């Protein structure tokens, strides 16, 4: 992930689990999006 570059394909394709089931992280990037990776829930 580098400033000025597109979000890497590997990151877009990473599978995550949401309350509604699995999704690709890239599918959650709708419009300007801040993605925060938490150390842990809490």
């Amino acid at each position, binding site marked *: *992930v*580098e*400033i*000025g*570059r*597109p*979000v*890497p394909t*590997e*990151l*877009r394709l*990473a*599978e*995550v*689990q*949401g*309350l509604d089931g699995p*999704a690709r*992280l890239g599918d*959650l*990037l*709708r*419009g*300007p*999006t*801040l*993605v*925060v*990776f*938490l*150390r*842990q*829930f*809490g």
Partner: protein
Amino acid sequence: VDGLRTRLDELERLGVSVVLVGNGPPSALAGFVREVSLEGRRVTAVTDPSRASYRAAGLRRPRMHGLRAAIELAQSLGAGYLHRRRAGDSLQLGGAFLADDGGRVVYVHRSRSPGDLADPSDVVQAALALFVERRARGRLV
């Protein structure tokens, strides 16, 4: 999340969606959303127990947390921050990035220690710059 939560209104006004990625078990997700009062916000919470997305984002996972982490923990306890029960990989470090509507990264932060968090003011500033850029391009309705 506490620091960011206080700036969510500003981010929403600037048209920025927020995705929170944890690495705990999916069973902990609903409780986390309730605990940090995210219902009804422009925030999507997900989890990635495989941490593949963390690796793809270049986020570190040291073998152990060092002296700096111990000092940060003592400082946060001294400031009255009560550490809640957590779910996930205790060694994984976090980070954040902001992408524009074309998927281009305009802000990135990678934690170097557990207490090295993205500065919410820096995030809002980047979002504001993005907002101004979009408005200049006439993409806002």
